[in-house]
């Protein structure tokens, strides 16, 4: 591989890897901004991945090359409905958010595998056939240097994820809805006094996070594993939450953190075939993503402050 090839590989692979994290992380930003921790995003991603693979397997004949995108939409809806469980438990019944989120994770892991066993009679689904493929952007791909890095071998999902993060930023910081969302997460009583329905806002935020988490899971499954088993989603939901904290509860910061994770990951992959670097023992390359993250968090981002009302159910009239 030439130097340009190597740079291009690191770059698009980082974006590719980051896409599911960005969608899920964006979901985390929305729900946490409204004052609800959604630790259940891991489970929501599992539901999304499971739904997408199932849809991909059964409807590939009907939708052809559009299967992936319809599967993503269906996963979004199913996961949003699934996330209602968290909303009902932690908002209406004021259960502890961490515990109900954990319950969601356990439920999703058990339920999806149980359904897989019922449907397929084994521990994992068959391999889905419609796959998230890379493509070259016409015209732009021929620009020297920039073309190979940004516009060759790209995945649509990478750019959709970046777009989604930007839209998320606009919604949270530039619209009345976003202002209300942040108000509910910082000082729900003040928001309530100003006539905002706190619980309604929180329900909406949790469902948005469910939908986005479902998209993240669907993209992951249809890009990397192509089947669904107990190990398909293993920690990506928590990675997304980490990216959100790393990015200071800001959609753009979160996106940067997710791409950073992807960058570290693809460096460690390509490292074993680069001169000089390949003489470094593997173990150092394996821990590279984590070490870089620790350094970045400890050194560069400064203090990361959560929304004030996080983790506390809103009870009208209480102080």
């Amino acid at each position, binding site marked *: 591989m030439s130097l340009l090839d190597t740079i291009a590989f690191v770059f698009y692979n980082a974006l590719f890897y980051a896409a599911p994290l960005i969608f899920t992380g964006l979901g985390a930003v929305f729900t946490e901004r409204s004052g609800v921790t959604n630790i259940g995003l891991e489970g929501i991603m599992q539901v999304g991945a499971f739904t997408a693979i199932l849809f991909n397997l059964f409807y590939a004949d009907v939708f052809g090359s559009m299967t992936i995108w319809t599967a993503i939409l269906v996963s979004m809806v199913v996961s949003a409905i699934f996330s209602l469980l968290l909303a009902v438990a932690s908002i209406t019944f004021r259960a502890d958010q961490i515990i109900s989120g954990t319950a969601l994770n356990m439920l999703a892991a058990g339920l999806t595998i149980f359904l897989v066993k019922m449907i397929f009679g084994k521990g994992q689904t068959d391999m889905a056939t419609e796959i998230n493929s890379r493509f070259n952007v016409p015209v732009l791909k021929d620009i020297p240097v920039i073309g190979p890095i940004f516009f060759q071998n790209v995945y649509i999902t990478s750019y959709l994820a970046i777009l989604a993060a930007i839209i998320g930023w606009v919604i949270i910081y530039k619209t009345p809805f976003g202002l209300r969302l942040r108000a509910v997460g910082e000082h729900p009583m003040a928001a309530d006094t100003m006539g905002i329905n706190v619980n309604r806002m929180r329900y909406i935020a949790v469902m948005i996070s469910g939908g986005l988490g479902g998209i993240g899971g669907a993209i992951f499954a249809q890009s*990397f*594993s192509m089947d669904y088993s107990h190990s398909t989603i293993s920690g990506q939901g928590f990675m997304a939450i980490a990216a959100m904290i790393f990015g200071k509860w800001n959609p753009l910061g979160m996106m940067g953190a997710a791409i950073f994770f992807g960058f570290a990951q*693809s460096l460690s992959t390509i490292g074993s*075939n680069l001169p000089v670097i390949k003489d470094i023992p593997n173990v150092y390359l394996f821990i590279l993503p984590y070490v870089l993250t620790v350094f970045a968090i400890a050194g560069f981002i400064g203090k990361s402050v959560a929304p004030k009302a996080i983790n506390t159910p809103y009870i009208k009239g209480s102080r």
Partner: protein
Amino acid sequence: MKKSILSILSLLLVLGFVLVGCGKKEDDKQGASNNEGANNDAISIAMVTDTGGVDDKSFNQLAWEGLKAYGEENGLEKGDGGYDYLQSNTDADYVPNLNSLVRRDFDLIVATGFMLAEPIAEIADQKKDAKFVIIDSEVQKDNVASVMFKEQEASFLAGVAAALQTKTKKLGFVGGMESDVIERFETGFRAGVASVDPSIEVMINYTGSFGSPELGKAAANQMYTAGADIIFHASGGTGNGVFTEAVERKTADPNADVWVIGVDSDQYHLGKVNDDTNITLTSALKRIDVAINDVIKLTKEGNFPGGNTTTLGLAEDGVGLAETGGNLTAETLATVNEWKEKIVNGDLTVPGTYEELKSFEEQ
């Protein structure tokens, strides 16, 4: 308030102990009575999976299929006194699972995977009367039979096949975690390639995980981009990503030269692109079912190989190369069979460690 909760909790705890105690006794009785009723010739056998799960399309699944086939042949039923399995979802499940099978009085308890070596050594000391089989690792206890495979022989053949069919003279190897087993896969493969054509380059990438398709995919992508056309993976679930990458390339460009060599079981079905195309070249097989049947046979004859290590290679049919789908050409198969004969005859010893590989390459 707090006190009352505490006392209720401790009451529950005590009750729990009492109930568990009762349960155990009943279990024992049941197991014993079942055993008496069972066919005298047939022995009851159960297995503990590693975290891959019982239907991992690979290792555990093969073992379980071996158990099932044996059970059905001998008219045994699933459950106590027949054949059964317990799945380990985390590393913490190994010891309790092994213990529970011992308590249920199975004649033979199989543990699949080197991750169970330590738990088995621990339980074997405590339960001297139980008989254990560990696959893919060596445990030096009188009541543990160890079964190992010469993975290097199967991957040697895979390497020969890949070297014969590569057009770009570049091959790839994606490994899971670094361990003795995967080292045997790697060295065998490289030796096979070098035996055909030493000028062929083999790119090596260890992903550090057996369950991360995203890492497998990135590694495969990088290798194919760098010009490799055949990748051999020995990385469990991470290998799914290798297949995904190859399928994606083949879907985008039907003329693309991308192939994957599967591992453990015949992974032909993973390489399906469409009804006419499949990118699985072959698979390096590990016949765990054969191994288990061998141990069962010996045990029945009263020669349970406790304390011994049985190593199965090409000569014992314990490893091999899959031919499903016909992606290997006739000439390749002929050459592969020539090499196979040499190995079976003992004319050729396939290197299984990096050091052996070095001296092999020097020859």
